């Protein structure tokens, strides 16, 4: 069971690094990177193994290992590890991207005093994320899910002395916690409905046919099938973690953390955990058919989020926040793909997105580092002259994200999503929303590129290129972004075949099936339009954003993120505040009143007891003592010291004896 080592090695590295002192930077970084490298190698081996494995035709090749963890009476909770195509690709991506980002962090965090602590937390996160991917039990997934949340909290609030960072970390944790409540409820319901939390367990697992049919046929409240209810609850957790509307509010604020954190957690891996969870639990989501209530909800939420976030990203001015909203939007795309029934399309986009979004974030980090911690794009400009490597890699990432055709993975994966959305029998509206979001993606990325790299430099620092330890990972990721385009084409449906266990063949003819070319052409047109309009509006820097001039109120709304945060503050936060006041009032007046009442009663009882003691018992004692004293005084009065008194008694006694003697004798 060597795949157990994949999460355990970074966990051990985190444990050892936690004990290291602040000054031991080199050992800490070396240990963490070595552990991660070992995990990457093991993931690669696992991946190669799944490539070679073949299940029965139509069945996916799965290997799993379960072990009992906790026995309560006759019930046993088991945990397990699973290795199948869905997980193997994900684990390789996660470990590889993490490794690159760890190497990047060595350079980025070089001036930070808490270098060792950063690497400890990074390693903890890596271990937890790999645990989520490789788990075969919903319980183990949940445990690692919470650990990932914890690591995210620790890393977002890494610079905790900044109040905004501390507040952002709290917001992230609380918002995802709200989603996790649904996750927990779903998990409990699943356990009660199917009797096990293991995914695959020789036919008894909850994702296997027996359990699925049982859950699909039973109905719960509102006429929904049990499987749909469970799926919707679990989707709450996924929506929280992946920043879907309405739990998206934490993701942009999470940019307070260092850039490697943003790249790793909030672009490539942690937010993808939500998508991965839905993909993993897809059998439950689709237990009542590919068009189930649960999947429909997922699709609508995903489509809405994609458009919503893209609209907000158009008006942002912080380089990382634009990327954050872009991540939310792309996650919406992935959820849409899952909702319309195509796990493959979602996973392809997830893996491709991981690479180019990490690339974009690391590039943004390089830019921030180069202009000395400036993050507002209005104060940058013309950086292509100062930071060429960063510019080229960033451009590659941007083109992959926009979906520039043919050579960039983003084009093929996004197209696949548009394709399956178009084929959805329920409605075409999500398809159009996705198309609009794609247009906006191209638009705002072009806007960002023009602000940052085009024109002339508007800031006050001296921009310089980043060191090699930061640019080399950029280059590697750029290469991956390009290379990933090859396995994603439908001409060679490698992913599709890999995931579903079908034989893989290279066939150009597939390109012409199912209106694929029409949609591909539409998306090319959209992307070109987006880039064109963006370039046209932003090629010259203007103090006031051109869009603001066109439609100022709308732009302001977008810039204020549709006032969602303010709405939450006015309702949820205020309600909780009132609840807190109520609880405090109850505590102070009722509960404390009861305590004080009990105290007063005790005091009253004790004073009553004191009175009783003083006036009743003491009197009794006093009277006894008085009696004794009087008796003593009486006895002492007989000892008057007067001889004649004694003699009288003697005489009387003698006379009495005499009489008695006489009586006895006669």
């Amino acid at each position: 069971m060597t795949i157990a080592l994949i999460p355990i090695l970074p966990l051990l590295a985190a444990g050892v690094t936690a004990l290291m002192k602040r000054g031991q930077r080199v050992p800490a970084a070396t240990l963490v990177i070595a552990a991660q490298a070992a995990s990457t190698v093991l993931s690669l081996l696992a991946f190669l193994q799944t490539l070679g494995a073949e299940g029965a035709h139509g069945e996916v090749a799965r290997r799993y290992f379960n072990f009992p963890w906790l026995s309560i009476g006759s019930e046993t909770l088991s945990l397990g590890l699973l290795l199948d195509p869905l997980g193997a690709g994900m684990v390789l991506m996660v470990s590889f991207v993490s490794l690159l980002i760890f190497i990047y962090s060595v350079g980025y965090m070089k001036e930070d005093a808490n270098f060792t602590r950063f690497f400890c937390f990074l390693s903890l996160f890596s271990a937890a994320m790999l645990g989520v991917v490789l788990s075969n039990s919903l319980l183990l997934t949940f445990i690692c899910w919470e650990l990932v949340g914890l690591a995210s909290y620790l890393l977002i609030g890494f610079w905790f002395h900044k109040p905004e960072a501390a507040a952002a970390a709290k917001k992230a944790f609380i918002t995802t916690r709200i989603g996790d409540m649904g996750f927990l409820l779903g998990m409990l319901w699943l356990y009660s409905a199917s009797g096990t939390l293991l995914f695959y367990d020789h036919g008894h697992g909850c994702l296997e046919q027996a359990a699925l049919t049982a859950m699909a046929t039973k109905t719960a409240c509102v006429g929904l099938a049990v499987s749909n209810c469970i799926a919707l609850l679990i989707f709450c957790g996924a929506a929280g973690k992946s920043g879907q509307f309405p739990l998206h509010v934490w993701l942009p604020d999470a940019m307070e953390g260092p850039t490697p954190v943003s790249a790793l957690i909030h672009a490539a891996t942690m937010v993808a955990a939500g998508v991965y969870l839905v993909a993993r639990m897809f059998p439950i989501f689709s237990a009542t058919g590919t068009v189930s209530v649960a999947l429909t909800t997922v699709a609508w939420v995903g489509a809405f989020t994609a458009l919503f976030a893209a609209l907000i990203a158009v008006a942002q001015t912080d380089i990382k926040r634009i990327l954050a909203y872009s991540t939310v939007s792309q996650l919406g795309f992935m959820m849409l793909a899952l909702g319309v029934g195509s796990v493959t399309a979602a996973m392809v986009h997830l893996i491709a997105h991981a690479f180019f979004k990490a690339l974009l974030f690391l590039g943004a980090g390089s830019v921030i580092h180069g202009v000395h911690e400036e993050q507002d794009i209005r104060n940058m400009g013309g950086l292509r002259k100062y930071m060429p490597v960063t510019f080229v890699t960033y451009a590659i990432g941007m083109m992959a994200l926009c979906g520039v055709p043919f050579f960039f993975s983003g084009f093929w994966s996004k197209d696949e999503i548009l394709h399956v959305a178009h084929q959805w029998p329920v409605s075409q509206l999500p398809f159009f929303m996705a198309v609009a979001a794609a247009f906006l993606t191209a638009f705002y990325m072009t806007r960002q590129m023009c602000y940052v790299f085009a024109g002339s430099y508007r800031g006050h620092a001296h921009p310089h290129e980043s060191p090699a330890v930061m640019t080399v990972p950029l280059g590697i990721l750029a290469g991956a972004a390009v290379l990933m385009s090859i396995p994603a084409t439908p001409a060679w449906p490698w992913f599709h075949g890999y995931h579903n266990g079908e034989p893989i063949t290279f066939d150009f003819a597939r390109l012409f099936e199912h209106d694929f070319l029409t949609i591909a052409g539409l998306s090319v047109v959209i992307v070109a339009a987006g880039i064109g309009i963006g370039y046209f509006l932003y090629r010259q820097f203007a103090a006031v954003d051109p869009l603001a001039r066109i439609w100022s109120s709308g732009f302001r709304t977008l810039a204020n993120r549709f006032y969602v945060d303010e709405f939450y503050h006015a309702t949820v936060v205020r309600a909780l505040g009132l609840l807190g006041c109520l609880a405090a009032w109850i505590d102070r007046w009722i509960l404390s009143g009861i305590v004080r009442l009990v105290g007063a009663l005790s005091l009253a009882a004790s004073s009553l007891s004191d009175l009783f003691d003083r006036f009743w018992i003491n009197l009794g004692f006093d009277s006894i003592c008085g009696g004794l004293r009087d008796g003593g005084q009486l006895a002492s009065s007989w000892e008057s010291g007067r001889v004649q008194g004694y003699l009288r008694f003697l005489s009387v006694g003698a006379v009495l004896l005499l009489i008695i003697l006489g009586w006895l004798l006669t």
Partner: protein
Amino acid sequence: MICDFLKTCCADPMKFIGDWFVLLPAIVLLLAGGAAVVMRNLIHAALCLTLSFIALGIVFIALGAEFVGFVQLLVYVGAVAMLIVFAILLTRPDQLTKSGSAFSGLGPAGGAAVGFVALVALLGFIFTSPLAKKPLPASASAPVADIGQALMGDYVVALLAIGVLLTAALVGAAVIAMEDKQP
């Protein structure tokens, strides 16, 4: 009982007169004894006591125990009564105006009552006991030679013990009454 007594007196006048030799000093004895008890003045009481001792001695002589009678007169009247008078003189109170009660703080009634009770009990025993109804034997004589013989013969231990006792009493009394010679 008094009727018998009168009959006996009239029947045998010699005996009757012989009886009065005992009875008369006995009456004096009782009167003097009573007076000694109730007298306030201490000297008067001591003198009455002396008189009662003398009467008692005469009673003894009249009853035939001449030796005891003379011993009584010698010792009691000659020594004890003198001692008492000397002690009274030696322990005169300093202020002659001190007039304490002759009877103790406990009250004379109590003492008199106890005495009365004892008297009643004794009289009851005397007049109900068959032993005390014996008649008078003819004569009883106690010649001094016989007393001397008995003293030196049967009662020699007691005699010697009495000697020791008297010696001890003499020495003790002298020591007790001695003046303290502390400077």
